């Protein structure tokens, strides 16, 4: 199957562990910020696949758990800076909820570096690219995430 070939080569070519990241980006700031990174041609690793959601406040903890369960090595939630939420206070709600998720993940012993939240505004293309760069760097030494990944053999 041609479509999975490309994915295989990615990992194989480098021989290095390539973490798979799911990045939930709010539509207004972080997704726009990542667009800006694109417009500015800022290079960053391709490990993170973005999923655009209306608002960081719409990211249910279930999404994060589910991504880990489906085998994500890292999960990023990114929204507008506090006070800049397009929906006024969605990111305030997100901050509280995500704090709990992050604490819980760490509590049960999942490496804290596997889950990240960031505020990236529409103007912060460079920041977005740095967030991804740093995340990938931090994930590499951790190796694949198998703690929560569903084993359905």
């Amino acid at each position, binding site marked *: *199957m041609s*479509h999975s070939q490309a994915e295989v080569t990615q990992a194989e070519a480098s021989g290095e562990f390539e973490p798979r990241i799911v990045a939930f980006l709010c539509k207004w700031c972080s997704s726009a910020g990542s667009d800006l990174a694109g417009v500015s041609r800022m290079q960053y690793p391709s490990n993170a696949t973005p999923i655009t959601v209306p608002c960081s406040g719409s990211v249910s903890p279930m999404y994060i758990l589910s991504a880990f369960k489906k085998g994500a090595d890292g999960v990023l939630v990114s929204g507008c800076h506090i006070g800049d939420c397009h929906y006024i206070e969605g990111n305030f709600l997100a901050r509280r909820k995500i704090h709990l998720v992050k604490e819980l993940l760490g509590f049960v012993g999942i490496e804290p570096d596997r889950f990240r939240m960031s505020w990236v505004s529409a103007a912060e293309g460079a920041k977005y690219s740095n967030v991804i760069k740093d995340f990938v760097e931090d994930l590499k030494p951790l190796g694949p995430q198998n703690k929560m990944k*569903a084993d*359905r*053999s």
Partner: protein
Amino acid sequence: MEKILGKTKIDDWVAALSDHPQEVGRGCKAAEAATTTHWQVSAPVLEDGIWSYQSGSGSVQLEHSNTTQPPKGFSFPQREVFFSFEQIKGEPPKLTQKLPQATRHAVFGVRPCDGCGAVRMDKVFSDHVADTYYTARRSNVAYVGLACNQPQGINCFCLSVGGSPVSSDGMDVLMTDLGDRYFVAAVTDTGKALMAAGNSVFSEPTAADRKQLQQTHAEAIAQPQRAINNLDAAPAKLKASFDSPLWEELARACIGCGVCTFLCPTCHCFDINDENTSATPIKGNRVRTWDNCQFPDFTMHTSGHNPRESLGSRLRQRVSHKFQYFHENFGMPQCTGCGRCITECSVGIDIVNVVNKVAEHAG
């Protein structure tokens, strides 16, 4: 075959079983592949505050009260993969059977109620047609039972359901604690083979041993237990009480958690689901998992109609299944009196009490 095993020698027997590949099995095909596998010995271990069967420690100490979970999982695991499927777009699906890997388990310390449980499970899974997966696993499990000199807990009632604390039903070997040694008796050919493997660790029983055995058994049977008042009348009484309002009353505190059934040595209900691992191509496994008649959606039709909607009707199903339907189908109660469903029920629903109350009410 009847032998004596010094308590200190039990580990030698276990070691012998683990070392010597044995050709046993109940004529299942998987047994052929299994000729070179060793026995994997499991025995009760106290961990996390509960007794559970665990394998691989090499050391077996039979000082347990009964395990929280019965040994039914050895032949009927909570999760069983039937087959995997893969369907590439535009092509027919490919199915790959996943028959259980033949690991042979010798399960030590099985209490007589759970031995009786195995008998009942065998009936269910061989009735009408033989269950492929259960059969494959069951033929590789041997139960090395341990008679109960004392009831295991305040809720034991094996005598009430036609069993006995020294019953060898369902066992391959039955051991009886005679203080510093066990009286070990083979019940089946598999049992004999198991004992043969340990050959030198055993000694021959003396007349005194036999006498002590008899006495121990007699004492065990004489120990007081909880009682179901009239077992033989139960099926008819339950049948007559099908529409009784008593069920709702008795189930009033039930939280529908299903602990009673998950821990029951004879509950066998299951669900079958497809667990997907990939969407393109469609890939996954068809999986059997334990299910539970106390769960509200167990019998719910797609339309939302549910023949057993209320907790009362579900309690009735559980109790009637144990004491009426199974009796009608197989001529014996399904319940083996282990008392787990009473002990573990968090709100005090007590099957002995329920059967007695219903019978009393039916007059």
